[in-house]
């Protein structure tokens, strides 16, 4: 079984690497993707949006604390990826941020690091690291529940879970830290809070997008791919099609 996963992983990387030669990301499974997208939108309408709407009524300091704490946990993915991308300066700074906020900031609920000048860096994950190593997106895919991704980012998402020290010390390793049940509850609780917070922060943006799109699926695909390229290129857009536009 382990060998099977290795073969799948190597194949996916090879496809994604081969795709890096072409700049435009193909939607190879559009029919299936559109069906999954509709399913996800249904799920959002019935579960995620109502929960996020309820969450948005929480007092601002509570939401701020939750956001800080979940962001702090994400540094366990962010910091290794900064080093893997050769961003040593950012990696060292964020390690400092993580240590200060976890201790003085009470598990990251407060953000004293920002107050002493250690400001937050852009998020990094394993998908971005693969991109920075020259691996292309591969095909665009829509994953059930998880939403838009590409082959490269799907592999990255696997890394974001299984190489995450927070996952390893809670769900991954029952004997460590919190024990069996508490470990699971902590990991999944944090994940749910993180996603709910993100959805609540984007309630208006996503409503606007839905209302103002003539083909929502294509809009989301375009926005996702542009955003990932922007993050992988460290906040710059390399291609400016307006330069040669007549």
């Amino acid at each position, binding site marked *: 079984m382990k060998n099977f996963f290795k073969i799948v992983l190597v194949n996916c990387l090879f496809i994604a690497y081969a795709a890096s030669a072409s700049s435009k990301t193909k939607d190879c499974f559009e029919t299936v993707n559109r069906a999954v997208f509709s399913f996800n939108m249904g799920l959002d309408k019935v579960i995620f949006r109502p929960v996020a709407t309820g969450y948005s009524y929480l007092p*601002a300091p509570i939401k701020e604390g939750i956001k800080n704490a979940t962001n702090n946990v994400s540094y366990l993915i962010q910091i290794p990826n900064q080093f893997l991308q050769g961003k040593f300066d950012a990696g060292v700074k964020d390690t400092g941020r993580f240590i200060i906020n976890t201790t003085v900031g009470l598990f990251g609920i407060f953000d004293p690091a920002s107050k002493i000048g250690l400001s937050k860096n852009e998020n990094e994950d394993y998908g971005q690291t693969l991109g920075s190593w020259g691996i292309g997106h591969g095909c665009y895919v829509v994953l059930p529940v998880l939403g838009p991704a590409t082959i490269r980012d799907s592999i990255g998402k696997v890394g974001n879970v299984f190489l995450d020290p927070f996952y390893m010390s809670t769900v991954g390793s029952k004997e460590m830290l919190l024990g069996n049940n508490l470990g699971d509850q902590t990991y999944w609780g944090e994940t749910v809070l993180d996603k709910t917070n993100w959805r609540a*922060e984007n309630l*208006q943006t996503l409503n*606007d997008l839905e*209302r*103002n*799109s*003539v*083909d929502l*699926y*294509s*809009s989301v*695909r*375009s*926005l996702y791919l*542009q*955003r990932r*390229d*922007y*993050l992988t290129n460290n*906040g*710059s*857009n390399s291609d*400016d*099609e*307006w*330069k040669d*536009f007549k």
Partner: protein
Amino acid sequence: MFKTNLFIKIIVLCLLTSKLYAFEKDAEQLIQSTTNDAKQIILNKDIKVEKKKEKLEKIALNAVDVDGLSRFTLGAYRKDLNEEQIKKYTKLFKIFFAKNISSRLQNYSDQNIKVTGSKKISNNYVIVNSKMTSKIDSQIIKIDWRVFKIQEKLVIRDLVVEGLSLAKTQREEFSSILSSKGFDGLITSLNNFISKN
């Protein structure tokens, strides 16, 4: 004599430099004044929603090169269309754009946009950088504006929010409809949007 020559050279240099930077400064001014005007309308509680939409549409149509944007959003499909189809599309796109932009803008009330700088790309193209700050959560969003000089008039052709180009997104949305439903499908989609808004 030497001093007079040097003085003249300095004056000429200053004049040339100020002319070189005038384009960027004018572009920055366009963005700041357009966003300020839009904000005043959005915040004015004495204006009814429909009137607000109308005023915002007017500002957008005045500041944006809608013809250029309509050509851009057709992408590669433009060369497959005849004159009459392009004319029909351009006319419809103008209404679609105005409705779309006013609908997006009217929900923004607590944000401040401040121009932070600009970069000249060519003799008729400048990217103006700005930052939008939300009063509620102090979130800062980076917005870049692509400003062009077309027939001596400065116009906006695109805005890029944290790396997301609105023009590109629109083009890819239309491209998807064009490839699956053809030109008539796109016209139907635009008409449906206009009738709903």
